[in-house]
Structures are given as structure tokens and as C-alpha cells.
């Protein structure tokens, strides 16, 4: 059993029609229940729910406060490599982007670590492209061995791996694995990913199942907003979450909803997701799942990040670099995308405190 068995019973166009035909009554029913189904989620992300945004935000705020308290978890991404054998038309690391590539050496990793630690971070997210001949399991294990004693909590966002590889990484000290489907529209997915291992839609779709079976503590899901209609894509993401929570009940989950950002050599977004729509989506996720962690990165603007904290967010990054060596080693190397909120870690920390929340830098024990 894996998610593909369920996914294959759904049809994109039917779901689209269903979401766009949700009525005021459906939205009110979804708001007035306390255990919400994927059908309720559809109502909450539908155009019919737009007039209910303030009410959704109030419920989202209360649910989040009850579950997570007035806290925001802080993390920093650390790019290990921008080598990549995939062509992804929206990504700066795409193979056809003829720019010099870089993979951090041991010494460089430690230099970056030192910088990030000085900023106060204790939770780190390691990111790479997909270069299976050079940036592979032994490379990851080596990198984790180097940084493990410095951070309480290590997450990775790398190419999809096999269950036994995830097991090894879990034993090496990886707490969570993030893998975004980008889009759940199978045909459109092929167009955005014309070449490389990533062009295999099904293999990516089954990745969270492989992570779930490995005993990793947390799985991060998401779609890249801008590729296809965000409503249908997000519905499939919620369906995926629902399936995983039932099947891997000992695992935690987080969802991100990154919007496409400018990067070197990439296409323009196919769909623009507005701030208002992003907030609707954030609140819908919270109303659908009280315990899912929701993350907002420095992709988003200062204006949005200044105001989104009480709406259901549970983790934020700050002062991020999206290129390998970006913090201390080689600030000018090829970046994956341009961040938007360039404020320092201290500024974001103050922002969170001014909003009545506590920035939490440590919420795990490296020896666990």
C-alpha cells in the first residue's frame, strides 16, 4: 500500500470542478465542524470561502495557540551543493543553467556551521540539488557526522532516496526529511521536469511512504505555488498528508507553501498566488490539521512575514542564504532562488517578540 494507490483513483479535472463548485453552505459546514475532512478542506480553499477569510484566520489563530502556544520555531537552511542533474524549468540549479557549480568540502561545511551557530540557530535544514554521483548517501553521512555535535535538530531537503538510505540517515542523526511534490498534476509535472531522475513523477510521489517506513521523526510536504492552480495542487497535498498521518502515525508532519521566486535562468510563474490566497491556504491547512507544522521562509516579503505570525505559522527561517557557502565561504556562488525578506536573524527575532510570540531556537535534543 502506498499513496499512489489512492492518488490514482482521483482525477484532476473532477477535483477542480468540485472545488470550484463549493458553495457558501459547504464553507459554513466546514467552519462549524471540528474534525475536518478532505472535502471540508476543499470548501475552505475554494473561492466560496474568500468572504470567510477573517473567520478562518480567527479559528486558525485559536487552534494554533492551543496546540503550539505562542511560539515560533527558528531554523536556518544550509545549502551543501548546487550540483544538479535535473532540468527543472523553475529552479536556479537546473542542469541547463550553465553556471559554475559547487559542493562544500569538510572545511567549508564547518565554516558555514560556525557562522550559522553564531547567529543563534540550533535547528538546521541541509539542502542540495540532485547529483547522485557526487552528492550521495556517503556524502550526506559525512556532512551529518561533521555537524551533528553543533545542532540539536537536523533536517534534510535532498533528492528522493530509498527506505534503507533514510534509515541510515535517521541513525546518523537526521530528524526530518522534506520532499515537495512541486505539482500533483502528472502531465504538467512532466513539462516542468523534462530531464533527470526527478522527471519520474511516481517515484517522487511515493517518497513520503519510503520516509514513513524508515522511522524518520518528521516528514515535510508541499507544492511549489506558481506551477499549476494552487487550489487543486494544495488539495492533493492535504490528501497526501491525511493518508500519511493515518499510515505512519508515529511521524510528525510539516507543510510548506513556497511561492516561486526569481532565479537565474528560470521561467515566469504560470499562476500568481496572491498574499490573500496564501493566507487562505495557510488557514485552511490549520483548520484541516490542528497538529501539522506550518512553515514560512524568507521567500516571503517583509510585509507578509510581519503580519502572518499569529495566523497559524509554527516555524520561520531568517537571514537565509540559498547558495552553497553563502554564509561565509563563497557568498557569490549560484543561488537556488532570491530570498525576499533579507532582515537579520536578530531583526526577525525582535519581530516575533513584538508580535507576542517567543522565538524558539531549541526544541530537540541531539542525543535523542
Amino acid at each position: 500500500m502506498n499513496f499512489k494507490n489512492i492518488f490514482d483513483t482521483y482525477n484532476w479535472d473532477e477535483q477542480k470542478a468540485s472545488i470550484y463548485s463549493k458553495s457558501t453552505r459547504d464553507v459554513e459546514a466546514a467552519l462549524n465542524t471540528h474534525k475536518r475532512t478532505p472535502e471540508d478542506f476543499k470548501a475552505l480553499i475554494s473561492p466560496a470561502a474568500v468572504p470567510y477569510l477573517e473567520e478562518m484566520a480567527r479559528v486558525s489563530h485559536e487552534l494554533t495557540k492551543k496546540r503550539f502556544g505562542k511560539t515560533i520555531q527558528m531554523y536556518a537552511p544550509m545549502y551543501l551543493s548546487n550540483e544538479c542533474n535535473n532540468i527543472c524549468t523553475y529552479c536556479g540549479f537546473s542542469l541547463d543553467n550553465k553556471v559554475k557549480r559547487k559542493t562544500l568540502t569538510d572545511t567549508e561545511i564547518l565554516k558555514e556551521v560556525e557562522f550559522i551557530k553564531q547567529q543563534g540557530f540550533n535547528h538546521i535544514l541541509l539542502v542540495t540539488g540532485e547529483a547522485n554521483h557526487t552528492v550521495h548517501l556517503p556524502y550526506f553521512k559525512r556532512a551529518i557526522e561533521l555537524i551533528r555535535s553543533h545542532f540539536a535538530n537536523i533536517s534534510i531537503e535532498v533528492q528522493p532516496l530509498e527506505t534503507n538510505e533514510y534509515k541510515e540517515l535517521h541513525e546518523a542523526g537526521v530528524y526530518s526529511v522534506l520532499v515537495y511534490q512541486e505539482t500533483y498534476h502528472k502531465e504538467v509535472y512532466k513539462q516542468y521536469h523534462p530531464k533527470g531522475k526527478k522527471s519520474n513523477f511516481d517515484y517522487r510521489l511515493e517518497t513520503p511512504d519510503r520516509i514513513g517506513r524508515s522511522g524518520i521523526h518528521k516528514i515535510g510536504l508541499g507544492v511549489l505555488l506558481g506551477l499549476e492552480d494552487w487550489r487543486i495542487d494544495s488539495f492533493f497535498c492535504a490528501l497526501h498528508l491525511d493518508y500519511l498521518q493515518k499510515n505512519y502515525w508515529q511521524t510528525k508532519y510539516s507543510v510548506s507553501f513556497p511561492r516561486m521566486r526569481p532565479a537565474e535562468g528560470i521561467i515566469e510563474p504560470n499562476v500568481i498566488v496572491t498574499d490573500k490566497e496564501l493566507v487562505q491556504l495557510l488557514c485552511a491547512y490549520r483548520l484541516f490539521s490542528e497538529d501539522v507544522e506550518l512553515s514560512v521562509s524568507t521567500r516571503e516579503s517583509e510585509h507578509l512575514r510581519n503580519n502572518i505570525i499569529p495566523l497559524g505559522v509554527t516555524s520561520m527561517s531568517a537571514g537565509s542564504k540559498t547558495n552553497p557557502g553563502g554564509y561565509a565561504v563563497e557568498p557569490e556562488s549560484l543561488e537556488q532562488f532570491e530570498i525576499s525578506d533579507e532582515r537579520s536573524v536578530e531583526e526577525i527575532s525582535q519581530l516575533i517578540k513584538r508580535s507576542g510570540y517567543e522565538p524558539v531556537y531549541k526544541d530537540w535534543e541531539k542525543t535523542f
Partner: protein
Amino acid sequence: MLKIAYQSFSSRLFLGSGKYGSSQEMYDSIIASGTEMVTVALKRIDTDTPGDELLEALKKANVKLWPNTSGVRNAKEAVFAAQLAREALETNWLKLEIHPDPRYLMPDPIETLKATEELAKLGFIVLPYIHADPVLCKRLEDAGTAAVMPLGSPIGSNKGLKTEDFLEIIIEQSKVPVIVDAGIGAPSHAAKAMEMGADAVLVNTAIASSKDTLKMGNAFKNAVVAGRMAFEAGLSKTSKEAKATSPLTGFLNV
């Protein structure tokens, strides 16, 4: 006075330290609540860096630090975490929490019993968070637990004493103190638990998520005191039916 293991407490209210908007808010509610012991997740404390904000605020409040094992999924991890906590916070008191289910944080009874056995042997004062299961409570006594901490309702739910009938049995049978943990969402819930004869209650979300944590800390303090006094005074029995004017046994008096 409440006595757990060798230690006496004049307050029967224990607090958690999570979910607060700032360390100051936490500090204020601790002081207002009059609590003498506050639980803190080992995973939240940064022992590598001196001056951890959370720890400093707790030290300033001058309460007994009570580390918990939140985050562990089985007995083995719990024992390991307990040893780390003992070293980091220099206490052998432990709030044992093993919830492999991150959604509802339901305690695992099998792993909790195993860990309690082992930790008691290692000299820990173990206070385990458990479901309101009377048989498990007796088994934990045999394993050497210092108290039992059954839940009132799912953690963080603020739903009150949904397990009331089972808590009654536990309180009736227990040889160790019974601390109602989890689910207490209002001072009235805490008062109710105390009226029933619980030895203490542990509260976190209801105080930490309130608009005025100081005032809510104070409200819980008073509720716990009132509930305990009522228990000690002996509540008059409630009766659902009016007394019949012609009782069934009335003929015996003729």
C-alpha cells in the same frame, strides 16, 4: 501537606513551561500561581550555551525544576533522556512522558511501565504521565513509581475531566499521590479534580494560552486551594431525586 517521595509541597498546583509567548509571561504566571514545581522539556533546554533564557527564568522563580522526557518514543529513549536530564539539571526527579503518537500525544502504557521499572531501579523519582487506567496505576506502584499522573482529557485539549469515572477509581485505590495531568482547561476543572480527592493537578495550556497569564495563574491557585479545602471538609452528597414523602421502608416505623 502533599508529600511526594521524600519531599513536601504546600502548593498542590504544578505547572508546565511550554507554549508561553515569552519567558517573562511564564515567570509571572509561576509567581502568581504559587507553584513550587515546574516541569520543563529537556529538549527545550540548551545546556551547551550558558544563560539559556528559559532556564534562567525558572531559576529566578525559585521553583523545583522537574525535567520531562517529551519527544521520546519508547522506554529505551526515555531512560537515556532521563540520564541526560539528571546530569544537565542535577535532579533525579523526572516527569516520564512517552508518547509515540505526535498527533494526540497519547501515552504508551507498555513502554511507560518498562521505563518506570528501570528508572526506579536507577534511583529516579519517577512521575509518569499515563492514561486514566486504574490497572496500569497499580502496576506502576509495583514498579516503584513515586506518583501517578493520569490524564483528564487529551493533552492541550482544555476539555476537563472526561475520564472522571476512571479517575475516581484511581484515587480510591492509589497508594501513591495522584496528580491529574493534561486536559485541565479551566480553574473549575482543577477545583473539581481536587474535590474528588486528587492530590495535585498539573496545568500548562490553560494558563500559557490565556490572554493574561498572571491572572490565570492566580485563578488556578485559588481553584486548587478551594477544591482541596472542600475535599477535606467533606462534600455533602448530591441527590438526583427528591426525598420521597412516603419512604419504602416507612412501614417499619409504624
